[in-house]
């Protein structure tokens, strides 16, 4: 968009939205028999977000499976929900300050 940092922030936010969507569908399916928790490997996906824009969705291992074959852990999903929200808010503040700097330059330092 503007410079490398801003485009990285943009990708970061894209990835966070993708993850938040997965968390929302995990929560919605907390009672669906046979449903398996889906997530993305955040750090790995962020590293290769440069070339491939499609994050790879994988099932999460190491979660306790209930009798109906469902392994959604509501507490894990709530944590991710809050975490994604905070990360997203950090990214938007950073992007906002980049834009503010740019605007200040356009206005030649006058406010």
């Amino acid at each position, binding site marked *: 968009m503007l410079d490398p940092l801003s485009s990285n922030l943009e990708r970061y936010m894209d990835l966070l939205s*993708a993850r938040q969507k997965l968390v*929302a*569908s995990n*929560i*919605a399916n907390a009672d669906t028999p046979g449903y398996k928790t889906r997530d993305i490997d955040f750090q790995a996906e962020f590293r290769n977000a440069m070339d491939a824009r499609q994050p790879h969705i994988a099932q999460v291992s190491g979660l306790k499976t209930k009798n109906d074959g469902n392994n959604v852990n509501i507490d894990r999903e*709530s944590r991710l929900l809050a975490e994604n929200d905070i990360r997203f808010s950090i990214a*938007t503040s950073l992007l*906002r300050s980049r834009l503010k700097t740019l605007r200040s330059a356009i206005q030649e330092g006058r406010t």
Partner: protein
Amino acid sequence: MSLFSALSVSASGMAAQRTRAELLTENLANAETTRTPEGGPYRRKDAVFVTTPSQSEFRSIFASHLDTKPQGVAVSEVVVDPRDPVMRYLPGHPDANPDGYVGFPRINPAEDMVDLMSTSRNYQANVSAISAVKDMIQKSLDILR
């Protein structure tokens, strides 16, 4: 990549949990019902959920074919408990059989209360998901302010 599809996923979760809560309260209310339109005592009902592709406005359906598919939830069927009713000896009851036994619904109020608690907790989780996503949408709007 739109966040709006996450909103419709959570909304589908809320709708499904609400349906389940309705069935569970119906079970509790009818724990002693001996007459039903289908004949015989009331039978316990419960909802079975199934994942569905997000059903929302055109844009997000279109997008869901392109990128990460968010999956919503829907009630696939309402299962009726096939077990025999509990027979209680009440000879004076108008619904008693010739031997003096009355069939009562096989409902364990504790079981329904526990299911109701889990339903309401999941409903709350969906509500928090909606508010978190709404917050994220709001923050991305604020970037340009």
